[in-house]
């Protein structure tokens, strides 16, 4: 008896047992807590007559949106899509602009010129210490204090700003633009290959092969060929995706459910097998620790949960979405539609220049006296877009300038001395020694700033820019479904953050490897 008791005692004193017991108690408590709150939520929702449902995604919200893909969305999903695209539009252009201005400002802060340096510093101190929201509101007030768009302001202009927003001359996309863009990417790849090839030749044969000149001329030639119609070769992809689209239309929703389940199962099984085989090398018969077992189990459990979800209503919903089931979601983002869209965009019967440089145009609305900026020709930015864009770009640029400055300062001292002692010129010193290292220091904090920029676009709600949060708010004001909208926000923003950080991490890793 005593022996048994002491055995039980020893069992509970076992480190491994303790470790997992603590964790499972924690997990159990957490699950119980979540379950409890979900229960409460279900009860409360029942009391207020608002049942949790995704139905609003398919219903017509009956509200129009200021700008974006669908200004008169047919379904809640289309409305959210519009908001998401608006948000992405501002994020992508904002990141590019903020990096550009931030780098300039960062260099300006290192400038020897007293006035330039002080101006950059005072800009930093002002922008950094005022809340972004106030800045965005201020920019809006600034644009609104511009003159109205008057009756006599009609015709084509290079640039025009008024209280209605800003209009710029712009290379407008023509029918072939998507094809050309794809073609251009391929061109970039080819010229990169040419560069590497020539460098290799240089190294092997030890003669001057002018890699830069070669790749540049390849780029120019291919670009010229593409611009005057050569881009139509990409139409092959469109042709293929047309077939794919037709093929996909036949497939029922259950196919996707099964396909996703099989993929999940396959991934989990291969990863478990990998883990098992990694400990099975010859005579060194490895031992599994409790953590290894846990990893295997959790992989399998996740896969099972995923598969189960695939056959639950969630999976059916996803499948419906992928099938592009018109009556349910009125979405244009199903897989057949997606490939159909590609085949439409990449059609080799399209001719003409891919882009056309247009002046901004102020046009008359119908037969009235009202004027507006043309949305077809040139580029017109609404006040909300412009204020938000300016706000987030300047705010982020300021932080980026600090990062750039710190990055360059961190490298420049000892490294510059070393470089100079090798006889490098100042320009090549910056290009070959300082920048590559500074970029490596700068990249992780830059990634954080990009994420902040993406999140800060949500402040557009204060100036009437219909990004995803503003649109979501309008939607739940109409339908009362706050919880689903909140979930959609979460999924969307998590995806954006994850994508951004993946990209940044990819480059980070790449640069690290290059360094070694």
């Amino acid at each position, binding site marked *: 008896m005593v022996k048994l008791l002491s055995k039980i005692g020893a069992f509970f004193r076992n480190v491994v047992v303790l470790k997992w017991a603590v964790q499972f108690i924690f997990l159990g408590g957490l699950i119980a807590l979540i379950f409890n709150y979900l229960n409460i939520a279900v009860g409360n929702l029942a009391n207020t007559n*608002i049942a949790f449902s995704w139905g609003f995604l398919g219903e017509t919200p009956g509200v129009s949106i200021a*700008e974006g893909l669908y200004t008169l969305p047919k379904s809640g999903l289309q409305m959210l899509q519009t908001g998401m695209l608006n948000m992405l539009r501002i994020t992508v252009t904002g990141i590019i602009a903020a990096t550009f201005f931030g780098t300039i400002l960062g260099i300006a802060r290192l400038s020897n010129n007293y006035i330039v340096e002080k101006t950059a510093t005072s800009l930093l101190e002002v922008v950094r210490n005022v809340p972004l929201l106030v800045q965005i509101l201020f920019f809006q007030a600034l644009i609104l204090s511009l003159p109205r768009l008057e009756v006599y302001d009609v015709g084509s202009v290079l640039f025009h700003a008024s209280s*209605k*927003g800003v209009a710029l001359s712009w290379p407008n996309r023509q029918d072939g633009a998507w094809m050309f863009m794809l073609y251009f990417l391929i061109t970039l790849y080819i010229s990169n290959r040419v560069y590497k090839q020539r460098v290799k030749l240089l190294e092997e044969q030890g003669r001057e092969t002018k890699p830069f000149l070669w790749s540049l001329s390849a780029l120019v030639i291919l670009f010229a060929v593409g611009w005057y119609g050569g881009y139509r070769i990409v139409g092959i992809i469109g042709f293929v995706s047309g077939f794919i689209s037709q093929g996909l239309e036949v497939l029922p929703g259950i196919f996707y459910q099964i396909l996703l389940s099989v993929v999940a199962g396959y991934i989990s099984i291969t990863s478990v097998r990998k883990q098992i085989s990694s400990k099975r090398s010859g005579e060194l018969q490895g031992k599994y620790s409790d953590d290894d077992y846990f990893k295997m189990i959790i992989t399998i459990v996740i896969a099972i949960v995923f598969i189960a979800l695939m056959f639950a209503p969630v999976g059916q919903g996803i499948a419906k979405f992928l099938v592009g089931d018109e009556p349910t979601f009125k979405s244009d983002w199903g897989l057949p539609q997606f490939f159909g869209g590609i085949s439409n965009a990449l059609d080799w019967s399209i001719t003409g220049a891919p882009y056309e440089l247009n002046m901004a145009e102020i046009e008359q609305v119908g037969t009235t006296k009202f004027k507006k900026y043309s949305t077809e020709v040139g580029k017109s930015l609404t*006040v909300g877009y412009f204020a938000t864009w300016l706000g987030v770009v300047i705010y982020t640029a300021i932080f980026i300038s600090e990062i750039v400055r710190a990055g360059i300062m961190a490298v420049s001292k000892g490294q510059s001395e070393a470089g100079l002692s090798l006889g490098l010129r100042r320009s090549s010193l910056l290009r070959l020694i300082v920048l590559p290292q500074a970029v490596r220091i700068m990249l992780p904090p830059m990634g954080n700033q990009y994420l902040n920029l993406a999140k800060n676009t949500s402040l557009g*709600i*204060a100036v*009437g820019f219909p990004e995803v949060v503003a649109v979501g708010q*309008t939607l739940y004001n*109409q339908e009362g479904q706050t919880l689903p909208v909140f979930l959609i926000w979460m999924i969307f923003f998590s995806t954006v953050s994850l994508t951004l950080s993946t990209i940044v991490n990819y480059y980070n890793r790449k640069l690290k490897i290059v360094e070694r």
Partner: protein
Amino acid sequence: MNKKAIVFLLVFAMVIVACGDTTEEVAVEATEEEHDHEDESTLEQVQERGFLKCGVSTGATGFTEVGDDGSYSGFDVDYCYAVAAAIFGDYSKVEFKQLTSAERFTALSAGEIDVLIRNTTWTQSRDTELGNDFGPTTYYDGQQLMGRVADGLSNSSTVADIDGLRVCTNAGTTTEKNITERVGLAGGTIQLITVEAFSEAIDKFIAGECDIVTTDGSGLVGRRAVNDALNDWVIFPTSPISKEPLGPTYRSNDSQWADIINWTVYATIIADEYGVTKANVDSADLEANPELGRLFGANDGELQTKMGLDAKAYYNVIKQVGNYDEIFSRNLNPLGLYREGGDNDRWADGGLIYAPPAR
């Protein structure tokens, strides 16, 4: 004594100290509320608490305004005061909660407020789906549009004339949907810019970002009276594109509470019918007008006491806040909103303001 236990206690105490303040606050509130909710009627809760929690707008000229010392005034605010006067005999026992349009119904159903008097439109879906009930309409409003004469608009313009224009409105209300639907019916499209507060929409209109601004007629008239020095602004179409009856909102399933709110509104209307005002309520001839007598508690105020109120409850309302006409003219006349000839005139004069008899 095991040292491990002490360390555990230490950490535990640290956690308590660390979140002490919020937990305490939470605990106090939680117990208070649990106590409150033991099948008590809203009236009992309010009386026990000692003040009324009234939900109002975050800012609507003429309806809810905050003065430079944080004091409240406005048409909706006065009705909150009236309800407090009826319950406590003291109009000042109100705690205002300023709510955005998005959170107002959540706040009401969660019990954060006792009554919502926040230019809220009475619609079927809100009445049925959200677990609310609506009191008598205090202000008959309707959505209209405002443009400039200089742009070629006049008060005979219609919704069809705004095809292709940029329209500003405020978010979270029925106006966004109304205008989209109406323009759609007229075969046009608009570019709709939605901002949070109506004052921002007006700013955009003044600056010229928007060609048209739309909201309830009362808001438009009010702002035109203040901002349009040139007499250039025009409100159209003459008959509003929607019906927006605004009035108090409360949780359903509490008829006693509903009666109190409803009859507070009716009392102001009836007093107006008899011409009884704040100033002359003491000299009102209750004998000659038995309806007034019943309402003001002359004969024991049996009806009021059955509601759970003081016999003098509605006398207090008129004495301290005033009748409908006083509330209206005090708050809305300065903005250029008048009752005469409109929907909000007395029913006898062709308006819609009508109260059931106090019998």
